[in-house]
């Protein structure tokens, strides 16, 4: 077995391990709560290790598509021709980075849910199913499986939020699911339209991408169906004005779900825009990207502005996610190397940083049972470590150099200035607003006179420290030494169709 083949199995294992874990949990008796936790923690560790391997072993400068695995599933029947539907998994620079993100956040989230007691077996079954879906989407090179895994990732959310959530959880869960399903419908229509128009009898994405670039998918077709794909995926990426599920969904979701959801799931949307928008319909992208740029800028400024006066921790993070995902969309819309690379970096950065934020919110909320900023004050006195962790996440959020947020935003700003200086300036201004809402929260909650009502709060548990520590490590590595990320992502982005240097 060659290395390439072996690595293909590693990729397969990365999405199979969570599925197997979910299956193992089904067989575990629900009363064995500790066993459930151990299975999940071990799964998290394995998945995290595999994803680190994939990221590290990805060869910069080699073929862009590496670690491939093909298992034919259905072909040469009815409307399907050669390679009709294949389990075709592979990794490029973008998905290697996304896999690393998913691995780290999945492990951190699994640890964060350790203290969950209510039906934790069911929780983890859904949790690992969701993550298998996420990995599957990132690795799929077959449009059919891409969509299958995408749906597999989105569906468990409804139960995870509806059953284990808080604050208007049924409303939050229903709204989130319905809006995402609405997006999926658009994508599904787009996929069938592409399959029909290309008329190749295959869902192989590489063949379809070629069809998108060589004129098989006519410009008119691309211009018509590009919005289906981008709005469909955009809903999940909190594309303005389809973002309102984000604040409510985050407010309702339990800690680990918020972490995985904001940390990883929202990235699926942006990833979908790359795979189904930029790669599949370059003509459509060229036509529509200025529009996406406008929506991205609106999202960036609007989210930051709305976050300024929120009083609930999770709403601040919800709106700040809208703002940061706005940056991602802006980066993608630049259609140049630096901007799109920045967008992918921002996907990673926002993922680890938001996961850390939600981990911290959970650590406080579990004890305090309130998330209103005004209830707190001087928390640094009782939870110093919690404050430091949260502050690091917050400063990364603000785009402070030395943390991942800066690296990503800097590339996005540079990319945006290449074609849209005014929008770039607005985005930089939104980053200053981020400083305002973050420091306002710091000032109200961390500092100031201590409210004795909170004397009993405990600082972070060892598991929370481990979980948060991994996320901080990711934030700092990307913030200081970003070459491993830009090397991988940049090389792949350069070869995307229609991307300017």
């Amino acid at each position, binding site marked *: 077995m060659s290395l390439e083949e072996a690595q293909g199995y590693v990729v397969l294992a990365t999405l199979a391990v969570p599925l197997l874990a979910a299956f193992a949990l089904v067989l575990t008796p629900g009363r064995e709560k500790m066993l459930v936790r151990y299975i999940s923690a071990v799964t998290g560790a394995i998945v995290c290790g595999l994803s680190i391997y994939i990221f590290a072993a990805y060869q910069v400068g080699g073929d862009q598509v590496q670690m491939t695995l093909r298992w034919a599933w259905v072909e040469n029947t009815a409307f399907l021709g050669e390679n009709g539907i294949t389990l075709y998994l592979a990794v490029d620079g973008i998905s290697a980075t996304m896999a690393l993100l998913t691995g780290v956040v999945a492990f951190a989230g699994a640890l964060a849910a350790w203290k969950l007691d209510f039906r934790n077996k069911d929780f983890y079954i859904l949790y690992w199913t969701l993550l298998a879906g996420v990995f599957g989407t990132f690795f799929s090179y077959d449009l059919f499986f891409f969509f299958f895994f995408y749906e597999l990732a989105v569906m468990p959310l409804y139960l995870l939020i509806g059953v284990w959530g808080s604050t208007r959880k049924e409303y939050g869960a229903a709204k989130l699911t319905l809006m995402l399903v609405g997006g999926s419908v658009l994508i599904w229509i787009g996929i069938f339209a592409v399959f029909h128009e290309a008329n190749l009898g295959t869902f192989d994405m590489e063949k379809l991408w070629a069809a998108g670039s060589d004129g098989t998918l006519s410009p008119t077709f691309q211009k018509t169906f590009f919005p289906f794909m981008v709005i469909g995926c955009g809903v999940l990426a909190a594309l303005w004005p389809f973002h309102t599920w984000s604040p409510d969904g985050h407010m309702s979701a339990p800690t680990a779900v918020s972490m995985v959801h904001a940390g990883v799931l929202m990235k699926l949307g942006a990833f979908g825009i790359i795979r189904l928008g930029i790669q599949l319909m370059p003509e459509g992208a060229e036509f529509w990207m200025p529009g996406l740029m406008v929506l991205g800028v609106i999202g960036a400024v609007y989210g930051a502005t709305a976050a300024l006066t929120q009083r609930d921790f999770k709403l601040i993070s919800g709106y700040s996610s809208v703002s940061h995902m706005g940056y991602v969309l802006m980066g993608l819309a630049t259609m140049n190397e630096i901007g799109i690379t920045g967008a992918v970096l921002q996907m990673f950065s926002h993922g680890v940083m938001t996961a850390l934020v939600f981990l911290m919110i959970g650590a406080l909320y579990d004890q305090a049972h309130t998330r209103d900023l005004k209830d707190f004050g001087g928390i640094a*006195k009782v939870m110093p470590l919690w404050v430091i962790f949260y502050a690091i996440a917050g400063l990364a959020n603000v785009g402070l150099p030395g943390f991942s947020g800066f690296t990503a935003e800097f590339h996005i700003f540079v990319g945006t200035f290449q074609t849209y200086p005014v929008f770039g300036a607005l985005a930089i201004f939104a980053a200053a607003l981020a400083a305002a809402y973050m420091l306002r929260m710091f000032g109200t909650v961390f*500092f100031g006179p201590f409210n004795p009502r909170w004397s009993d709060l405990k600082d972070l548990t060892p598991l929370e420290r481990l979980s948060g520590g991994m996320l901080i490590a990711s934030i700092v590595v990307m913030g200081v030494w970003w070459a491993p990320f830009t090397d991988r992502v940049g090389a792949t982005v350069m070869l995307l169709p229609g991307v300017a240097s």
Partner: protein
Amino acid sequence: MGAEQAWLLAAIPAGVFFVLAIFGRALPRGGDYLGVAAIGTSFLLSFFVLGDLLSTEDKLGPITASIEWSTIGKFELRQGIWIDPITVTMFGVITTVALMVNVFSIGYMKGEPRYYWFFAVLQLFVASMLMLVMADNLLLVYISWELVGVCSFLLIGFYWEKRSATEAAKKAFITTRVGDVGLLIGIILLWKATGTFDIHGIIHAAEAGQIGQTYLFVSIMFVFLGCMGKSAQVPFHVWLPDAMEGPTPVSALIHAATMVVAGVYLTARLLPIFEVADGALLVVTIVGLTTALLTGFIALAQTDIKKVLAYSTVGQLGFMFVALGTGHPAIGMFHLATHAFFKALLFLGSGSVIHATHHNQEMEKLGGLWKKMPITGTTFFIGSLALAGVPPLAGFWSKDEIFVALNDKWGLWAVLILALAATMTAFYTTRLFIRTFMGKPMDKHVHDHTHESGYVMTGPLMFLAFLAVTAGFVVFHSVGKGLGLPGGITEFIFAEHHGPHEYEIDWGFAAASVVMATIGIFAAGWMYWGNSIERSTALAERNPGIYQMFKRKFYFDELYQAVIDRGVLGFSYVVSWFDRYVVNDTGVDGSAQITGFSGGVLKYLQTGRVPNYAMAIALGVVGLTVAGLVVRG
């Protein structure tokens, strides 16, 4: 060590930051000695760097080193250092002041909670500043710039239990951050025109005329916004006086060597671009003049000793920008250096007073302290004279240089404005000194409990007083030569096309300077000497409007508060409302409700009774038949 390893100057304190932040709590005395050792090492290393620079052919360097940092296609980022006379001057100023502040803090911060954390952040603060002045590219400048900002946030908010300290820290960070928006825009605009972040690459491109005039002007003005924010120039000056909420040694560091001089440094560094961009120097000059004048007025009416000093810093930074506005980096850097020494002295001196009087910093309660605190009093006296511009102290020489150059470049109108500001400086400095150290004690209780501070605090004062006296002499050719430099400061630092020039005293301006200082000093003496404060009170009562305007700092804070409350936060409420009620409740929930409503209505069609369905089928058949006939026929 070669100068290529100058990055160690920043790396050592940065490393100590991590050690102290993580283990400081467990170390004896919070590891303060590690802080002193780290800065002390950087201080010594700066001499090696200077030595290396002076051993280059023309003693001017530059010595450079850089490594590749990341590459995306043609977008290559390099990080590196650039050692030239401006850098080593900054090294000297920063490490000297930082070392003094570190030593002083051992006495001043004794017994404070989070003692180790104070020393930890101090190291990072200094490290970031050192990195800033040696960076060879604007990206690294921006990175260090922001790190300096966050350290100032942490230090100003050191006493975070106090609401006012937290607010001040927030104000400092956000105000400078607004300027930084401009800086980053400017940096990226310059990159867009030249394809590089390398400072000297950009300067060469600008000088070679590769960038259009308007474009260059706009981008350098954006950069200058960042400099104005960091260096607290009007209208960004509001954060600096509030930054007094930090421990006093931090104020000394912020006001003298780190943070506020970053803007002056960057302007000096990019001065060739300002010169090429038509009108940019005039903007710099006007901003500097406005700041010097406005803050002079404000300082007249402040009674908190640290506030007076804070406004004097803002004013002196204005002087530095005026100096840079003449196109001579040397003069700006010269004033930066002399000011750093005497302002650090004054702040540490006021710290000594505050420490001795158990945190009293209101002039209304001080007075007559000289006998109680002879060393602090004497050194403070020297610092005040230097600030007032009395010859032959350091401040005199650098101010004098500014006047001469200003007259050459912009003419008499500018000189007159600045002269007024200089006179006011002399006035309020004298007032500060008299009301704190001379006369009868205003508050007997405070006075009785005062005692001179220990040597760990007075030692740095004496050293800085020595520099406040002597630092100005470096302007002379022979003194510079004696120190191993190519000559005086203006022969060491200079803009390429101006070339070095040897300092010659202009007796006319020197005399005028002395007259201004004398007027200020005597006017203050007449008003305040021997507790004759009635005179100033009477003056204030006769002109309540003007007095209030000065006292309330021209209402800048009130104006900004209104803009933030009504404008920014108001807009945020509007956006939140729009998001909740229009986008969400109407757009999203509304469509859900329409679906629900139509489902509710349509469900009545589904009655489950066969006769109803049969009826519907029959009607349908009839309807379709009729329709078919109509269409055909």
